[in-house]
């Protein structure tokens, strides 16, 4: 391209032009790379989203739609009319260049079928079936949700889940803030060692301690109550303390000193200096806790026995065990269960990223 353009210029400043052509070439390969990257990412994104769309689509389908039309993501039904007291599916037929909507009343041999116009059922037309296209319309089944939620007391499970989630969140926020403050703003012997001990508990799966903790709750009479799922949150956890501490460390010490000069004690400094600055980190840990508590299955499975104490996760699991053939109802209940995380994700994406940047990278 450049050679055709102007050979005079090429002779005048050959090195510059060569460089230019080289850069253009680089730009070209980079453009191709970007197109390929975007294409691959788009393809992957479609693959990732299909299960989710499939789930939503199943939640809006009737059992018949699932049976006859399983791969269609949009719930459709055949349009039917009553002819002589029998329901007949409507078809779109091209007849002498005019498109007409006719009802199929009886199949005939030779790939033909008898059609009638619903407006004039006396006149029967014998037409090839291949020319007729069934008329279908968008037919979501909204009663799935209602049915799922009246079959089992999901409202009870929802209340329990909310108690566990927000009760635990309150405890976690209070305790982790205090502990992170203690680990970030004070000097004391053994504090660093204790912090390492705290960090090492991230590596400790809860299964290692579950049996004695279960026996403890059993002795306290807490098994089959929501308490085992809430109370431990009031004693801080390593991950959230770590995240908050990393954030507190970034808040300039000058602010603490200024507060101290103004006569604030350490608790007032935490309340009026640190906490207002740390709002993004507090929101991050609150979101992480919400997702954890909302989705947790293991501990509710172990500690909750009677159905009226179940959380959504357990309720959904047992609903599936009882009504696994009612795929549409199971999926309707599942969709409802993922709505809060999805909403949270879209409205608070910024805080997710922030929380991950604070812990993940510096870890």
């Amino acid at each position, binding site marked *: 391209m450049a050679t055709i353009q102007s050979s005079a210029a090429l002779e005048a400043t050959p090195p510059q032009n060569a460089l230019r052509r080289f850069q253009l070439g680089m730009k070209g390969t980079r453009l191709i790379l*970007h197109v390929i*990257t975007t294409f*691959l*990412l*788009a393809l*992957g*994104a479609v693959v*990732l989203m299909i*299960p989710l769309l*499939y*789930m939503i689509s199943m939640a809006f389908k009737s059992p018949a739609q699932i049976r006859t039309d*399983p*791969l269609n993501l949009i719930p459709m039904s055949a349009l039917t009319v009553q002819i002589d007291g029998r329901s007949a599916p409507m078809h779109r037929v091209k007849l002498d260049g005019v498109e007409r909507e006719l009802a199929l009343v009886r199949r005939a041999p030779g790939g033909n079928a008898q059609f009638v116009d619903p407006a004039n059922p006396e006149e029967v037309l014998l037409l090839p079936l291949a020319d007729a296209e069934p008329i279908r319309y968008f037919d979501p089944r909204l009663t799935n949700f209602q049915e799922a939620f009246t079959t089992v007391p999901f409202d009870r499970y929802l209340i329990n889940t909310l108690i566990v989630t927000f009760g635990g969140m309150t405890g976690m926020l209070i*305790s982790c803030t*205090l*502990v992170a*403050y*203690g*680990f970030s703003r*004070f*000097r*004391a*012997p053994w*504090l660093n060692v204790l912090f390492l001990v705290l960090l090492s*508990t991230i*590596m400790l*799966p809860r*299964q*290692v*301690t579950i*049996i*004695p*903790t279960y*026996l*403890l709750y*059993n002795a306290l009479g807490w098994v089959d109550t929501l308490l085992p799922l809430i109370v*431990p949150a009031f*004693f*801080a956890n390593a991950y959230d303390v770590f995240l908050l501490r990393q954030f507190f460390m970034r808040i300039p010490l000058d602010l603490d000193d200024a507060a101290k000069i103004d006569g604030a004690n350490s608790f007032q400094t935490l309340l009026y200096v640190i906490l207002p600055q740390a709002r993004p980190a507090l929101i991050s840990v609150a979101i992480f806790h919400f*997702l954890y508590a909302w989705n*947790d*299955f*293991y501990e509710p499975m*172990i500690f909750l026995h009677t159905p009226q104490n179940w959380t959504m*996760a357990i309720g*959904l*699991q047992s609903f*599936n065990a009882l009504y696994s053939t009612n795929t549409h109802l199971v*999926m309707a209940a*599942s969709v409802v*269960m*993922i709505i809060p*995380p*999805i909403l949270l*994700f879209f409205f608070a994406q910024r805080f*997710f*990223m922030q929380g991950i940047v604070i812990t*993940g*990278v510096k*870890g």
Partner: protein
Amino acid sequence: MSQASNTPPKRSLLRFMDGWSLQKREAAAAYVYIAPWIVGFLIFTLGPMVVSLGLSFTDYRTIAGRAPNFVGLDNYLRMFNSPDFWQSLRVTVTFAAMALPSGLVLSFVIAILLNQKIPFVNVWRTIYFLPSVLAGVAVTLLWILIFNPQIGALNQFLALFGIRGPGWLTDPNYALLSLTIMSLWGIGGGMIIYLAGLQGIPTDLYDAAKVDGANVVQRFFNVTLPMMTPVLFYNLVLGLIGTFSYFTNAFLVGGADGAPLKSTLFYNLNLYRTAFRFFEMGDASALAWIMFVIILVLTLLIFRSSEIWVFYEGELRGKK
């Protein structure tokens, strides 16, 4: 009068600290603030670990209604002779060998792609991240449906091409592969950590490499990869621990016995059913302790090897 104003009633509680030095007061304050964690650590971590070590040497059963008897190493011996124990280890290690490397590589590659200046990059990031937020029973049930051999979407999709799909979750040869595919759906969690890591690499490192004439591939292997090893390391350790505590998906797919044919009997599932189905708290405590030892050894191994392959920026500064 003056005495009263010097000691407001609020401070009288803390009067015992009056003679203390500033350092001592600061230390006391620190311990007061971290007290919730110390108490929690003693009640919910250290205490239970000691108790479970003790229980692992007894025949304690919760439904037997009698005090635990000391039985020495019986539980451990029975465990090492139990086919279920070895099967659960085999299942866990096989799954880790399938899911961890594939997830690690895939999420790293996607993070690199999402770190380019491409159109709609925020939309792509959101889509890739979203599934990882939706873990839990609802998503597992969705996948169980997708993998259903008769009515599931996967086999019906394959049927369009004339392929007869296997019984994904009902065939012992395919169950772990299916669980791996399930876990790959959630790679967005790892991806976002890598993305944050990639964005934390200082651009002057790339500029310096460019000045030295390094091409894209060389820049990747000499700048990106070394700078990312700490994050890779972090994800590897947590991933390994995650496999040993893998529960929800396995339980929903195969029940407490790891159907089909114990092909999904994960370590944690075996622990769960020993404790809460068979009520053998002594055996279960032994399983829990062996789990702890395995994780400890693996983590130490990775830490040891990390000296060879994990690069920390601070090291270079230290050497100077």
